[in-house]
């Protein structure tokens, strides 16, 4: 057998050994708590994803995967509040300090999550959410009758199927995408991130999307009932939706830079403002 052939025959064994060693460095921890109605769960993680889904009963089930023995999870229940905190036992890089959380909670659990880099994913709840991330991707789906506040430095923020919400998104440079999001208040503000909204602006709410240099793209159906104003101070406003003109504009209209109009009864207020980004309003 040649040296090359001999080396090749050892390769799968080496890979398996390495995988086994890596697996042994991972530790799964499980925690189970019983909380009362409308509980709070707070999660503080530095590196690694946090996923929150509804549970069947009243119990909170937590599975934490620790990627090294340099970290541990401190879980503390105080009354109706559960706090999960990644605790560094010694200096660790982003791989060694990674902890993956999978959490199942009663659907009426108020959640706050802070994670620097991992994806934060929350779905199918009807309680308040506060999510903070640096570069973390934030995904929130199918939430109703709740406050949804997301704060991000440069990670993308994606919200989908949020109904009757009080939604506030703040980001410095991360893009914000809102699909079928409605409620009494829906705001998204970024410095340079792009803001995309696709939906019908229902609920007679106040919708405001603001940024400095990113684009703002809004797509709405013909049946949307909105009273809209859009201004780009040094960028452009591009509209192909057939709005009816508004008799009294709150500001002087400059073709291609600003827009006011209504659609149907104009029950929701929609304000779009960018300093230098392009604003596009499109018919679905």
């Amino acid at each position, binding site marked *: 057998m040649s040296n090359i052939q001999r080396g090749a025959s050892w390769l799968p064994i080496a890979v398996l050994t390495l995988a086994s060693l890596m697996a042994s460095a991972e530790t799964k921890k499980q925690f189970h708590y019983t909380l009362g109605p409308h509980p709070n769960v*707070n999660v503080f993680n530095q590196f690694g994803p946090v996923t929150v889904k509804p549970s069947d009963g009243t119990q909170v089930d937590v599975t934490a995967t620790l990627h090294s023995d340099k970290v541990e999870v401190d879980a503390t229940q105080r009354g109706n509040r559960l706090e999960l905190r990644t605790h560094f036992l010694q200096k660790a890089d982003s791989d060694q300090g990674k902890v993956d959380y999978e959490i199942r909670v009663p659907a009426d659990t*108020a959640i706050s999550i802070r994670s620097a880099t991992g994806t934060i994913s929350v779905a199918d709840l009807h309680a308040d959410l506060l999510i903070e991330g640096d570069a973390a991707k934030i995904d929130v789906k199918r939430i109703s009758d709740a406050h949804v506040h997301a*704060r991000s*430095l440069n990670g993308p923020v994606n919200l989908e199927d949020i109904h009757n919400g009080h939604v506030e998104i703040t980001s*410095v440079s991360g893009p914000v995408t809102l699909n079928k999001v409605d409620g009494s208040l829906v705001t998204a503000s970024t*410095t340079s991130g792009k803001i995309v909204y696709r939906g019908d602006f229902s609920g007679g709410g106040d919708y*405001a999307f603001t940024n400095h240099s990113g684009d703002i793209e809004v797509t709405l159906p013909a049946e949307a009932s909105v009273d809209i104003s859009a201004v780009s101070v040094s960028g452009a406003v591009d509209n192909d939706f057939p709005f009816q003109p508004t008799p009294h504009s709150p*500001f002087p209209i400059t073709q291609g830079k600003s827009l006011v109009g209504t659609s149907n009864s104009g029950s929701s207020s929609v304000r779009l403002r960018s*300093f230098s980004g392009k604003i596009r309003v499109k018919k679905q």
Partner: protein
Amino acid sequence: MGKGVSGGGNMNCGEFQESLAYIIDTGGNAKQKEHLKECSVCSDLVSDLRYIADQAKLLVPMLEPSSRVWDGIKTSLEQEGVVKNRTARGRLLGILPASRWGPGTRGSGIWMLPIAALVLVAVGLLAYRSTLSSRQTASAELSSSNSALNFTNVDSDAMSDNQDQQLLAAIAARAPEMRQSYEQDLRNVNAYISDERKSVDTDPDDEDARQALNEAYREKAMLYEIAVQHSQP
């Protein structure tokens, strides 16, 4: 002139100087004006005092108010909805640990940066709000108040730049790989504040511009808050 014992007309320097405040405020009566014309000592004195009074007006924004003043500003901003009171926003925001930014937090003074950011927010907002109000006052008051405001903006920018450098140094010490992105974000958000501040200055009645300026300040405060978490051991 005679060392403060004599002067023009029927008035000597002692009599003249007893009414200095009145003279500086009003220019004085006929006798005082005559004395001022003829007495170089008193004339120089009045000239110096007027200069000091003018400079003092400009220096007002530099005075460091007590913590009660900052608390008052914060409360006012919260009441006006410019900044948000976490405990007043329902249980969602109340669930954050109260000690998160408190003095007990580990780290050597870095916990103060969010407070500094809040102060910057207050200073910035007060500056442009004062701009609004000053434009509505009589033209006689306009120039002096605008001078003070310009000074406040310059002072605020200098403070801001100093705080930014401190923040970046703290980030570099704890998470050097993130320094560059924070620096870029700070640059962007500062440009945002600067541009929107100009918009408000150009048209103080532009409600959208004022809202956008609020948002820009909030984004900067948020950036500070999140950055501080990286700066702590």
